[in-house]
């Protein structure tokens, strides 16, 4: 079995993560070089100018040009980091969403202390939900009277996605702020109650990974762990069919209007 986690960055199985990793590597090399230079200069200076008999301090020290060049170089390098690496990578993850027709859309509803995953089912449209209907048996508050909800699939802490297909996650929270983090996907997004924030990613490899909550959300924050399972296309279909509700839904409880997934 492949080793996913170790002392360095976790394995990256996403299509966009390489850019983030590259930025992290480049900036760390830059930091290391700069720091080593500083440290060498510091040690040299401390030895060379230590107080000792026969050595006197100089009141006037010549003006150094080097630090100005260094500061200009650092500033330019920061511009390169921003424009060359940071802006494009962030832009790609936040602004350039995949075509909804090609992507799998899911709703992730965070709560203390679990991740509820809501798949739209075969029709590709989410059923209506309402906070008033939320309960232990119905964690996302699905309105079972809505015909669009009949084929919807909900799971707790089991987030299956197909490999090589973009996934758009609509993130929301029932109670407090959580943060939806999948280390191997280089995905992390705060989940703010009262808002639906979208995030997208595409897995390149199959495997069994984990979702971690990255924002303190209460006493169970440490165990708010979800499973992130990347299946082959066929396996994912089998799993989803297996999860799909079998018996016909009970009669409608309330008059409802069909509602598509709000963008």
């Amino acid at each position: 079995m492949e080793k996913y986690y170790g002392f360095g960055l976790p394995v990256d199985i996403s299509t966009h993560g390489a850019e983030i990793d590259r930025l992290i590597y480049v900036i760390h090399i830059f930091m290391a070089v700069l720091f080593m230079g500083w440290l060498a200069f510091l040690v040299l200076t401390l030895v060379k100018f230590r107080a000792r008999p026969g050595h006197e301090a100089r009141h006037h020290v010549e003006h150094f040009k080097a630090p100005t060049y260094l500061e200009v170089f650092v500033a330019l390098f920061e511009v390169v980091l921003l424009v060359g690496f940071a802006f494009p990578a962030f832009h790609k993850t936040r602004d350039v969403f995949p075509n909804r027709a090609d992507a799998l859309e899911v709703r992730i509803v965070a709560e203390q202390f679990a991740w509820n995953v809501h798949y739209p089912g075969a029709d590709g449209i989410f059923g209506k939900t309402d906070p008033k209907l939320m309960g232990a048996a119905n964690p996302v508050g699905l309105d079972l009277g809505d015909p669009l909800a009949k084929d919807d699939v909900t799971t707790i802490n089991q987030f299956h996605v197909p490999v090589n297909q973009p996934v758009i996650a609509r993130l929301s929270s029932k109670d407090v702020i959580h943060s939806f983090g999948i280390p191997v996907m280089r995905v992390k997004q705060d989940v703010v109650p009262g808002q639906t924030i979208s995030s997208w990613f595409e897995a390149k490899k199959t495997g069994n990974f984990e979702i971690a909550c990255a924002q303190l959300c209460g006493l169970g924050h440490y165990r708010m762990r979800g499973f992130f399972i990347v299946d082959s296309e066929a396996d994912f279909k089998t799993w989803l069919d297996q999860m799909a509700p079998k018996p016909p839904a009970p009669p409608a409880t309330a008059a409802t209007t069909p509602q598509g997934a709000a963008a």
Partner: protein
Amino acid sequence: MSHGEHSRELPFWRKYIFSLDHKVIGAQYAVTGLLFLLFGFCLMMLMRWQLAYPGQPLPWLGGLFNEQSMVGGIMLPEFYNQLGAMHGTIMVFLGVVPLAVGGFGNFVVPLQIGAPDMAFPKLNMMSYWVYFIGGVVMFASFFVPAGAAQSGWTSYAPLSDIASFGQTMWLFGMVFLITSSLLGSVNFIVTIVQLRAQGLTFFRLPFFVWAQFVTAFLLLLAFPPLEAAAVLQLMDRLAGTSFFLPTGLVVSGKLLEVSGGGNPLLWQHLFWFLAHPEVYVLILPAMGIVAEIIACNTRKPLYGYKSMVYSVIFIGFMSFVVWAHHMFLTGMGTKMSAFFQVTTMIISIPSIIILTALLLSLWGGSIRFNTPMLFATAFLPMFGIGGLTGLPLGLAAADIHLHDTYYVIGHFHYVVAPGTLFALFAGVYHWFPKVTGRKMSEVLGKIHFWLSFPLINGIFMPMFIMGLAGVSRRLYDPTQYAHAQPTQPLNVVISICAWLLGLAQIPFIINFFGSLFFGKKVGQNPWQATTLEWSAPSPPPHGNFETVPVVYRAPYEYSVPGEKEDFIPQTERK
């Protein structure tokens, strides 16, 4: 001009408890701050047990805690969260700021500008006592039902809105601490503007005074938004409003009975509007202390004094426009995040200028390695690491992976612990002779330094590795996650270093109290320094100076060619 006789008539409680003298108030602040630092450190040492050996009973001490905190010596997650939240709050608001600003600022600034006292002595006393009450409220919150605040030192709503009573105590405590800081900052600004000695122009001020001046403005203008936020959260908790609660919250399966309509991110904006300038409140006085000690112990003027002054002003200004870099992952638009990434990169430049200037100040000197200088020298690379590791966090794309991991913890602790705290230790060793008339032991001081320096790096360096591995912060039990298991041995290393670091503070504590009584007696200028505080007797009498000082020179006239001594006090006529 001697008012020594006058102050001797004061009863004990007026002289040492409700004193109006800036030196006594400074000492009160410093001692209280040091005690809170020790207390906050102890909280952290408890947390380190749980992190190194999750779920194992705490040996020896486990039985001391009630069943709300530990069961059979095993820490509960609620208690862990309390320790985390209060460690942060205490270290920042009750430890470092009171020591750096209240302690060193109060004691040293009036002396360095040649003033007899602060501009408003009564306000000064009030500021200390309001801080003291805030500290008592914070401390007492551990003993209320369900314990102290447990929503992190950042107290993000809605978690903090629905938290137990300790959070209300935390908010009241914060209101006191904020008020105290506001009173103090008004006093500092007026003192520095109005009460400088004759001839002491702004560009003859020691760098430490500049740092305190900018800090005072940060406190004055950045704290009120947090006060506003605290008021709003108190309203949410006590009057049932929904400033930070959106509509339709379902907590533990129940729909919350509130009007809704609020915004959780409002708290974060108001909080970080303060808390980013607050970071500079922690670091600027430390830079000031280091600059003083480096100039004195290299026996030469600071390199690039003016560019340092301009940089410190620029940092202060920019620190108000970077706050949202703590919020890159809250769903902010890319344009806004781009703006804050740019401002964050800009603010790194003046920090690099100051650090480089301090480094170059060593060049050409004749460096005395006494205890204050050791700590001040160590500050430079430590602050360097802290500053540099801020860069990846300031870039939103890298922040996606590093946000809220141990990388963040490592980053800001490098700035504040081996950075600011080392500078504060340096300051204690440096100004102790001025405060007491006695020197601290060099032997104990060097033991303290050479033990602390490697150990503190042993604590924070591994955190970068854990952060890169993606381990989240604030985890009660990191072994729950597969991705955190490979780095778990580092947690053991960190904890052992932390406990040893605790032991390494014993020489300091012995030295501090021992030297009060047995330290070597010194004259008014034991370090042969130039700035004004060394022209006053040690300890300075009431009113500080025996003759009203007049300033004729720049602050660091060391090793001037052709002079008999290698230092010329600022008061010496040209």
